[in-house]
Structure formats: C-alpha cells, structure tokens
C-alpha cells in the first residue's frame, strides 16, 4: 500500500516536474526580459521552443523579444539579423497556430520595425501588408483588445498626418482599454501586453476621446 502511494506520488510529481520545467523556463525568460537581458531572454525562449516544439508561445516570444529590441536600433546589420530571426520564429509559430490574431499583429509589428528603421525603403511595400494583417486580425478577433489597439494606433498615425479626425480611432482605443479589463485566456503565458500602451495612446488623444 505504502509502495503504491509512493509510486503514485512519484508519477504525479514527475508530471509536475516536467510541466514546471516549461513554467519555470518561461518565468525565468520573462524575468531576464524585464531585467533587459534581451539576448539571454531570447536564447531561453528559443531553448524552450526547441524543447516544446508544438507550442506556438515560445516561438512567439522569440519573435517579440527580437522585434522590440529592433526599435531604435541604428545598425542595419544588427537590425536585419534580429528582424529576420523574429520573422523566422514567427513563421514557425504561424504554422503551429494558423489564423492566430496575436501572431498576425506580431507580424505587423515586425513590418513596423522595418518601416521605423527606413521608411523610404520599406514603407511603400510593407504598409499595405500591415493594413491587410490588421484587417484580417480584426475579422478573426473583433473583441481582442490588442488587435483593436494595434489597428487603431496604426490608422491614427496617418489620420494625424493628414489632419483628419482621429476621434473614431480614439474611441476604438477606449474600447480596447475596457476590453483589457475583461480579456482572459486559459492558456498560460498567453500574450497580455497592451494595457499600458492603450493608456498612453488614449492620453495622446486629449479631447478627441
């Protein structure tokens, strides 16, 4: 009897052990990222991705870490290496999880990083691609606050430039902010960014909200 309990516990705890490897790894990677150890964070997400080869999330985070690191990067070689890596991991994530709105807006973010680096070169080809990605993401997930926020922020940029009314986009951002409060996913480590960004964008709306 005692032996049976022991064996059962062993099996149970081994199961926990395996799962917590993923959890521990992901938590560690987020800690590294927060501590701005970008390379280590990216490497750890990449190792988790290699070990959990049917889970899109670690691939998604490799793409995201490298994309965020590219904003403000001035060296073309570093930037292209990072963004190409981001795109490579994103493509794998998209194969593991097709039609995932989070991945579509992440892809648009990679494009935005290229445009931010050299608008004259990449703006003309990548801007319509982003418009397409945001439209598709919104069709797939009309109530996903990150999708609503990303699309609104993208559209707001050019509306501002042409001196057009930005209030419809501000309304969208406000709606996104409301949805952030209720948005829940039962998948561990599901993307959760965006609330602070939405607040910043809404603040920039001023009286237009």
């Amino acid at each position, binding site marked *: 009897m005692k032996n049976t309990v022991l064996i059962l516990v062993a099996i149970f705890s081994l199961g926990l052990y395996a799962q917590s490897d993923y959890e521990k790894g992901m938590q560690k990677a987020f800690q590294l990222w927060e501590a701005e150890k970008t390379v280590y964070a990216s490497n750890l997400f990449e190792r988790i991705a290699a070990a959990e080869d049917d889970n899109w999330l670690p691939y998604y985070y490799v793409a995201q870490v490298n994309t965020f690191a590219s904003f403000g990067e001035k060296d073309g070689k570093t930037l292209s290496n990072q963004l190409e890596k981001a795109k490579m991991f994103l493509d794998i994530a998209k194969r593991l999880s097709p039609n995932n709105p989070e991945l579509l807006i992440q892809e648009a973010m990679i494009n935005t990083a290229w445009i931010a680096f050299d608008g004259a070169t990449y703006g*003309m080809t990548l801007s*319509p691609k982003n418009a397409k990605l945001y439209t598709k993401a919104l069709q797939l997930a009309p109530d996903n606050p990150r999708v609503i926020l990303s699309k609104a922020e993208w559209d707001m940029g050019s509306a501002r430039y042409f001196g057009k009314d930005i209030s419809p986009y501000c309304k969208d951002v406000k709606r996104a902010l409301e949805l952030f409060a209720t948005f829940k996913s039962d998948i561990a480590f599901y993307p959760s960014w965006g609330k602070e960004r939405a607040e910043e964008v809404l603040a920039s709306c001023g009286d237009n909200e």
Partner: protein
Amino acid sequence: MKRLFTLLFLSMLGTGLAQTTINGMVSDTKGNPIPGANVYLEGTYDGGSTNEGGAFAFVTTETGEQTLVISMIGYESHMEIGDVSYLKNLQIKLVEAINQLNGVTLSAGTFEAGDNSKVSVLKPLDIVTTAGAAGDFVAALQTLPGTTTVNEDGRLFVRGGAAGETQVFVDGLRVFQPFNATANNIPTRGRFSPFLFKGITFSTGGYSAEYGQALSSVLLLNSVDVPDQEKTEINVMSVGGGLGHTEIWGDQSLSFNTQYINLAPYEALIPSTQGIRWNSPFESISGETVFRSKGEKSMLKLYANFNHSNLDIDQENINFDDFVRFQLTNNNLYFNTSYKYFFENEWTLSTGTSISWDTNDINVFDTAIEAQEAAAHVKLKLKKSFSNRWDINFGAELFQTDYEETVLTPDQMEFQNGFDDQLFAGFLESDIFFSNHLAMKVGARIENASVIGDFTVSPRVSLAYKTSEKGQFSLAYGDFYQNPLNEILRYDQGLISEKTSHYIFNYQYQNNGKTFRAEAYYKDYDHLVKFNTELPEFNSQFTNAGFGYATGLDVFWRDNKSIKNLDYWLSYSYLDTARDFRNFRESATPNFAPAHNFSLVTKYWVDSLKSQVGLSYQYASGRPYDNPNTPEFLAEKTKPFNNLSLNWAYLIDQQKILYFSVNNVLGFNNINNYQYANTPNANGIFERQTIRPPADSFFFVGFFWTISTDGRSNQLDNL
C-alpha cells in the same frame, strides 16, 4: 504533509540523478569570442548562453549520446553530437551566415530596383516620381549611368549600343515589342505600367547566362505575386484617363487596367510646331489584365495586354517641298503565362510562355506597308539550392519568330518579304558564395538559330569581393550574341549572329543611405551587319564585316540621408565608341552616342505642403552627324542637349494625388540631328534642315484617385 513529502521526494530524485557539466568556448573563425550565443542540448531544457568572453557552462541530468546545438544570430548553427561526458572544454568556431542585406552581392553591370534587395539603387516608386519621366519607367532608367540621351527616340541606348541591342523580359519571358510604335523623331514610351512590378533589374552589361539575344543590355521586370489589397484606381490626365481594379479571393487575385491616351486636346491648346503638323495626334487605347494564383508551393500568373494606337502626321523633309505624310496604325496583343513550383528538396521549377502578335499598317509616300510579327518564347528552368552558399540554375528555351511584310507601291506593285526563325537556347549557371566577402557566378549559354543556321557558345563569369563593411569590387566578363534585326533578316538569311564581349570592373560603396558606384568597361563588337544601301532593302548586299568597340566610365552617386527630406542622385557617363556597321563608309562614332552624359535627379518632400517636388536636369554633349559638304564622315557635332524638368505631386488626402509636371521648363532649343538633302543645290552645296523636338517643352497635369478597402493606400504611400 503530503506536500512536504513530495518536496522531499523531489529533492531526493534530484540528487539521485547524475549531473554532468557541459562547458566550452564559442568564437568566430578568427578566434574572437562570441558573447550571447545560445548553447543547449537538443530536445531538453538544459542550456545556457555564452558570457562576454564567449564561455558557457551548464549542468545537465541527461546521459548518453546527445546533440549540443550552438546558435547565434548572424552565424550558421553548429551541432556537436557525442556522449555528455565528452562535451567538456569544447572549442566551437561558428561560421558567419551568408547575409542578404550585408553580404557580398554580384552587382557588376546591374542596377536593381527591388524592395528588399541590397543592390537596389532605385525603387519602383522612384521611377514614377522622377521629374521628366512622366510615369514612363524607361525614361526614368535614362537617368542612370551607362545610358545615353537620344531625345527623339525614347528607347534605351546602352554603352554605345543601338536601341535594338536591349531586350526586355517580364517574369523571365521575352517582351517582343516593349515600346509603343511611333513615327521618326517622335519619342516612344514603354508599354507597361511600373506599378505592375515589384522589382526591376536593369543590366548594362555582363548579365546572366539565363538571358541572350541582347548585345548590350537586358531589362528584367518581375511582376507582383500577391497584391496587398482590393482597390480601384482612377486617373484623369491632361492627355487621357485610366481605370484599374484589383479583386482578391483568398490566394487568387485578378487585376485589370485600361487606359485611353489622346494628344489631340493638348495639341489643340499648345500645338507642336517644330517641323511637324499633326493630322491626327497620337491616340492609344490599351487594356491589361493579370490573374494570379498562389498555391502552398506554387505560383501561377496569367497576363494579357492589348494595345491599339494610331497617328497621322506631316513631317518636314529637306528632300521634298511639301511636308511628308506618315500614317501609322499599330495593334499589339501580348500574353505572358508563368508558373513556379517549389519542391521539398530545394528544387524550384519555373516555366512559362509568352506570345505576341503585332501588326503595323503604315502609309508613307502613297506606299502602303503591312507588317506582321507573330512571336513566342517558351522557357523551362530548374534551380537547385544546395545550401545558401551554392546553387545551380539550368534551363532551355525556344524563341519562334514569324515575320511578314507586304509593300504596295503607288503603281500597285506588290512586294512581299519575311522570315521564320526557331531559336533554341540552353543555359547552365551557378552562384557560389565562398563567404560573406567573396562570391562568384559562372555559367554558359548555347544558342542555335534556324534562320541563319548559326550555333554559338557564350561563357559568362562574374566575381565580387567585399573589401570592407561598405565597399566591394566586382569583375564581369561575358560573350553575347544576337540575330541580325528583323529589318535585315527579312531580306537576307545568309548572315551569322552579331557578337559583343563585355569586360567590366566595378567598385561600389554603400553606407547608410549613400551609394557610390563607379564602373569601367570595355566592349568589343564583331560580325556587325553591313549593307551597301541607305536603308536595308531587298537588293542590298549584306555582310558580317562590321566591327567596333565601346569603352567608358559610369559613375553614380545617391544620397537620401544627409539632408532631411531630400533624395537625389547624380549620374555621369563617359563613352568612347566607334563602329563600322550598317551603311557606314568607315569606322565612326554613331549619332546615338554622345561622349558625355550627365543627370541630376532630386526629390524634396515638403511636409507642410504634403507635396513632393522633383527636379531633374539632363545634359548630353553634342551628337555626331555627317555633313556631306565635308570629306570627313560623321565628324561634326550638334550643340549639347540640356533639359531641366520639374514635377510636383500634391497629396490632397490619403487617396487623392494631384500631379503636375513640366518638361524642359527653361525651354532649351535642343537639336537632335541635321538632315541633309540627297542632292546638292545649284551652288554645289548640300542644304540641311535641323531636326528638333516637335515642341521644346511639355506640360502634364494628372489627378490620381485610389479607392481601397482600408481607405489608406495611394500611389505615393508613405513617401
């Protein structure tokens, strides 16, 4: 209690397992440590990153044979397979990955207008917004070095070559009539809209073995694979109007464009008066449609273009008291079908067919000329990538040309001439990247033309060496053969191919928005066709006794970073050429080859006005002409050519653009050539008339409106 038990058990389990430390050093091939490399056992959570000194160490509970993966951005991943107990004090050397954006490129002789391409010096949009080009991509290419300004022609004259020495390909397939039909001294335009293409490669020499039948140059146009969105485009111009629409269903899309051009209203307002009278100014109606279907591993494109144009003009001619009437009606139908399939093991198959039917009905001196050309190109190409350092391309193609001409003289005499040709060609070529610093392209092409029964072998080699982060040298050599032109083949099929050899030396420097290129070249022409009459005729005697050379230096500088919102490029070409061909009585510099060509193109974005203002200046030194009153041949020169053009694109809002341009805003009185009388006057002097452009300046106003689903895009998106 239970929890405590589990913890105890876990810690026991942990200590119970054997632990091994894996450690080592990661460096590049020169021994410099690589920090931040990712090192891990494949399929496990065990791993780490290298520190500042390139060292790594981590503990694993795995045993037995394992795969250690070392990966780092910018380097090729490395694997070590072995028992964990042996994975100690490893010395790993990572090889730099071949990098598309920063690596060496095979660029001798080529200008690319792509999007992600590093060798890109121009982008498709640059072409449309070049002042003076008025949306004609060929006119924009004429601002690049290696081309010469032949104002009254409109086609591409490259490095001392005649216009017929340049061939145009769409998706690898030949375009048989890339230019609109026109009258003498009335410049033509390219038939295609630049917006159909995502990439344009303009090679001024030394190009790939995949292309042939062009002595001087090839222009390669690659069409868009998947349009980004559904949209309708409307344009209203001072010379006509157009309508286009793109519809997308999943991975399939259909686009169509129609355009109507009529110069009559413009000519009524601002008549062209210099040596011409329009009876009926140039009028054209064209339609094109593209269907694209993208599969998981394939891409199919069907393209069709129809163009009808006509003009009726009276032109001054020194040999006649009255103006000479010239009437032209042209119909052109062109199909281009291409299919690409990507196989699992890095094999790619590309195949396609292009077919054209072209008819010209010409009336001049009361003689009716009816010319018909039916031509086809079929091509099959295979590519295998062995790695990102080595690939092989090979293929075969067939060109079929069927040309017929009927001439009906005023006294009802009828003459017929023509020819049929099947030209078979095969090519094999390999790209080898030895490192990010050294690359080579080597290949050969064989051709057999049935009409002349000539078999040729042309080797092609190019080499590129990167000397620093930003600079590289390139060398290229190649032999190029071309059938004699249709106007000759229809009378004589006993000739052989004309030949050139290109020797090119190139230096390129790119640094953060600045591009400098200098290219020196030598071209050797042989077997050029000669004949003993003014123009090729049925009773002319033809030989391959012609020869010639062209040598020169092309310099290009572009900078779009130093001054905010200003983008400009400068081109200078020096050309020294002489040839004995056609009816030349000795070797001389032909009329289409001015020695110095200079272009300056500027574009300035005025944010407060939401406008792009463009200014282009073109200069060409005097062009040789022959004065029969002197004993020398082609020894005199016209005065230099000058043109300053201005354009202004105003974004009314995201979808509406107002466009205004003036060609030759300062009204320079340019002289293209002189025409001398066939016979001397009473004093024994050959009289002459000046050939000038029909009008010195040209104005253009257009309104472009894009209606798209997202309400954002336009032709000047995100300038």
